[in-house]
């Protein structure tokens, strides 16, 4: 399809603004633009149709099954959107006087109360805009804690090798040296490896539990105890909270701080890559280090974004939590885990799970043997799934499993959808044995065939060339 710029006709356009009703003022010559920006000039009809054409080339949770591991692509309720679109929320200036923003304060305070209860934390901030941003904030809490105690020798953050790439990148952004520790064969923390690196230079540990292969680390209390004993703090990456919310609390596992992805666990939409909200919770001893807006509060302290964060995302998450309540929150987690196990067992016998045991909310298929047999890779399978109307699972992650496909069906999928998905996987397993070349060339019926990523990277075209 054409780019919006290719539909532009000079002189076209809409009039959304009235004539100026005051004397017009012009910029001094030295500050004036040389020429008008080359924005599209287009009628509203064409503009509307352009986006309708674009939207047909998007697959959302509302379009179909989206088992993208680690991303918790659950259904995003419409009511959450409607509440976030209330003019009483969208029309509020962040610097309006406090008495004019009592509703916003109530949203934030209520969401904080509910989410600290769910996570076992004492305090929370909604300033971070995404999971990685929350990680950054959380590790800065750890850094401030040690700094405030004058404990300058703690320069290392421990990260398991199965971690999300954001964990080591975050630790580096916080000035820490990253110590990678190998995982045990089951993807859990190797206690001996952990003990070997703990010391008085340990600032903290970053951990996901359940971990990135979808297994709950049964040694979790021992892990957090060991880190605390060494004088470090424990950071919980909340990416996988959907498996355990309302069932077990990170605070009870011994974690000192945590980030949540409201856009995963609490059903706010991903918007094609954002906006999200990476709420950060902490225990009381870290509360004083939470970020604030300098302009809104006039207080000192760290700040990771302007104002109070992605407020409307918090409105959506709060609507969701109130809808589910104390009964629905754990039921969501339990059904997420049930659906994952059900799907895993239905697929098993063709594609094999990397770990043959009960999983949490997601599981990893290991296609390395399958690839040796058929020559068909995890990528080929993923691309053939597209032809079947299914969004592929997360590919080639975690790094500790080769030819990995990671599936997270979530609790909002029905048994029929899971049965259908398993059937699709089984049929692709057969297809790989009969017609591998077809799969190497997949997808065949998608928006595009496989794109040439090498060409894109070698000769970057990053904007419309005119």
């Amino acid at each position: 399809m054409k780019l919006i710029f290719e539909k532009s006709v000079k002189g076209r356009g809409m009039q959304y603004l009235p004539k100026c009703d005051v004397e017009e003022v012009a910029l001094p010559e030295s500050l004036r633009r040389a020429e008008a920006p080359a924005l599209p000039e287009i009628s509203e009809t064409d503009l509307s149709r352009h986006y309708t054409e674009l939207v047909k080339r998007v697959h959302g949770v509302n379009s179909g099954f989206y088992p993208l591991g680690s991303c918790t692509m659950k259904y995003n309720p419409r009511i959450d959107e409607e509440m976030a679109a209330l003019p009483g929320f969208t029309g509020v200036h962040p610097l309006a006087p406090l008495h004019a923003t009592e509703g916003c304060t109530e949203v934030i305070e209520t969401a904080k109360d509910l989410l600290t209860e769910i996570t076992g934390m004492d305090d929370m901030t909604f300033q971070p805009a995404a999971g990685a941003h929350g990680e950054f904030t959380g590790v800065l809490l750890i850094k401030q804690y040690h700094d405030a105690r004058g404990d300058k020798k703690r320069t290392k953050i421990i990260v398991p090798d199965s971690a999300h790439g954001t964990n080591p990148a975050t630790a580096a952004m916080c000035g820490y040296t990253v110590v990678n520790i190998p995982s045990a064969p089951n993807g859990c923390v190797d206690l001996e490896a952990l003990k070997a690196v703990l010391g008085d230079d340990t600032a903290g540990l970053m951990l996901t539990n359940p971990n990135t292969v979808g297994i709950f680390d049964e040694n979790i209390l021992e892990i957090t105890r060991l880190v605390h004993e060494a004088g470090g703090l424990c950071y919980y990456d909340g990416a996988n909270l959907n498996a355990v919310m309302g069932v077990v609390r990170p605070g009870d596992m011994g974690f000192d701080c945590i980030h949540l992805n409201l856009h995963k666990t609490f059903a706010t939409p991903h918007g094609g890559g954002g906006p999200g909200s990476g709420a950060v919770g902490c225990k009381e001893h870290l509360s004083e280090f939470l970020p604030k807006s300098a302009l809104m509060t006039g207080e000192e302290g760290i700040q990771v974004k302007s104002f109070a964060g992605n407020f409307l995302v918090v409105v959506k998450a709060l609507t969701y939590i109130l809808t589910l309540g104390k009964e629905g929150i754990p039921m969501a987690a339990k059904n997420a885990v049930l659906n994952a196990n059900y799907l895993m067992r239905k697929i098993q016998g063709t594609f094999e799970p990397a770990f043959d045991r009960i999983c949490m909310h997601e599981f990893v298929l290991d296609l390395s043997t399958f690839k040796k047999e058929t020559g068909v890779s995890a990528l080929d399978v993923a691309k053939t799934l597209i032809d079947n109307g299914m969004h592929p699972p997360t590919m080639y992650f975690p790094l500790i499993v080769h030819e990995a496909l990671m599936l997270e069906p979530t609790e909002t999928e029905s048994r029929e959808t899971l049965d259908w998905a398993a059937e699709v996987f089984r049929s692709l397993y057969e297809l790989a044995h009969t017609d591998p070349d077809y799969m190497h060339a997949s997808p065949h019926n998608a928006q595009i065939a496989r794109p040439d990523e090498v060409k894109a990277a070698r000769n970057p075209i990053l904007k419309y060339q005119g």
Partner: protein
Amino acid sequence: MNFPKDLKYASSHEWVKIENGVATVGISDFAQDALGDVVYVSLPNVGDKVKVGVSFGDVESVKAVSDLIAPVSGVVCEVNEELADAPENLNSDPYGAWIIKVEQVSEEADLLDSEAYEAHCAEEA
């Protein structure tokens, strides 16, 4: 896979050829094959100091990035600027497409000859 006899190799997959006190450094056939299509090479500047075992740049493919580890210590005296526009040369001609030349060589890593390096690669593959 090609392992020229007249070169020496680091276990981190760089090759070195020292002639008249100048070390020419590139990446091996094994390295380029493992990386896949190289799309970008991040190069040092002439005059930069390099040190054995320390990264002096990196090589990017679409889905991976790999550090270039200096097999010798010294001062960069020449950089293969062609790679900025044609990184694919590392794939098509890994032993022709050198990356840097180093002078004032003061230290060498424990380098392998082609036979030992071939065995090392066989182990990693």
